[in-house]
């Protein structure tokens, strides 16, 4: 005996009740539970759906689906970092590398100038506002997408993780500002700071702008044609 569409929906609800929020994780667990239940029915057709489900779920152990969910989150995080690094690498190709060189020189000249603190502070404020605005806009966009589609883990990472990187970038830039206080920056110091600033800018632009714009393409690549928005 095969499970009905209604049973499949019940299984999705069951996984959601057991803290499996992401549809990509749900679909795999639902298929697994469904196969298990169908196999039980072959042995004992009188068994109720609920009883068979309970037996199958017990096989996952006392932590239920927790390990599966956390491992999937780790794996998807890795996949996201892979996408991020690939996009950052694109910036080091011709002609994009020219913009990196220009950015780097600008930062370098700033750090060597008398007004470095004022300029860096203004940059910090402007960039901070841009990042806050972007991450706010992404959250709104994510909510909008949410109301029309299933929850895909990668989508969540693309739209929400960006703010995590934002936070790290802000803290780092803040620490760097403290470093420049007082003494004049040496050539090596200026090169190092300029490099960090350039990379921070690129990573932020990639995570807050480029990857979210490419979200649909990345989701399709990861989940193939089963992403429906």
């Amino acid at each position, binding site marked *: 005996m095969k*499970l009905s569409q209604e049973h499949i929906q019940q299984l999705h609800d069951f996984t959601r009740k057991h803290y499996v929020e992401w549809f990509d994780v749900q679909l795999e667990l639902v*298929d697994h539970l469904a196969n298990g239940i169908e196999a039980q029915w072959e042995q004992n057709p009188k068994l109720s759906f609920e009883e068979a489900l309970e037996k199958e779920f017990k096989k*996952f152990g006392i932590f239920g689906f927790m390990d599966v969910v956390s491992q999937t989150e*780790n794996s998807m995080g890795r996949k996201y970092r892979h996408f991020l690094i690939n996009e950052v690498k694109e910036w080091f190709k011709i002609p994009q590398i020219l913009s990196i060189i220009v950015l780097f020189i600008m930062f370098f000249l700033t750090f060597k100038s008398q007004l470095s603190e004022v300029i860096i502070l203004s940059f910090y404020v402007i960039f901070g506002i841009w990042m806050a605005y972007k991450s706010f806009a992404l959250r709104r966009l994510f909510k909008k997408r949410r109301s029309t589609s299933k929850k895909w883990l990668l989508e969540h990472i693309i739209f929400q993780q960006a703010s995590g990187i934002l936070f790290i970038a802000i803290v780092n830039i803040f620490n760097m500002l403290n470093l420049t206080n007082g003494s004049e920056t040496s050539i090596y110091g200026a090169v190092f700071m300029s490099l960090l600033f350039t990379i921070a800018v690129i990573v932020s632009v990639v995570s807050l702008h480029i990857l979210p714009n490419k979200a649909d393409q990345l989701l399709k690549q990861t989940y193939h044609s089963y992403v429906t928005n």
Partner: protein
Amino acid sequence: MSNSKLYKGSLNTIILKLLSENGKMYGYEITQKVKDLTKGELNITEGALYPALHKLEAEGLLDVEIAKVDNRLRKYYKLTESGTKETVSKLQELAEYIKTMQNLVNPKLA
């Protein structure tokens, strides 16, 4: 399963080997295949299988395909190019391990 701890370290190798022989497989199919092949001696637990599959996927050793089967979606796993290479070296490692264990527990046979 007689002793799950002894098999635990070989779970990835078992998964890779099965996929190299069967092409694409889904989670439930892997658990059943292992049960059949070992005549019920080894029972891969669900709680260990899926985390292992997802880890191998993140390492780039497995690729994923989603297909509609009956009235539900099914996630299939298959080896990537580096997964195929890794299978060979993992199997070699396992063979050496078995040989070493044999030398230790039964020196007469070696």
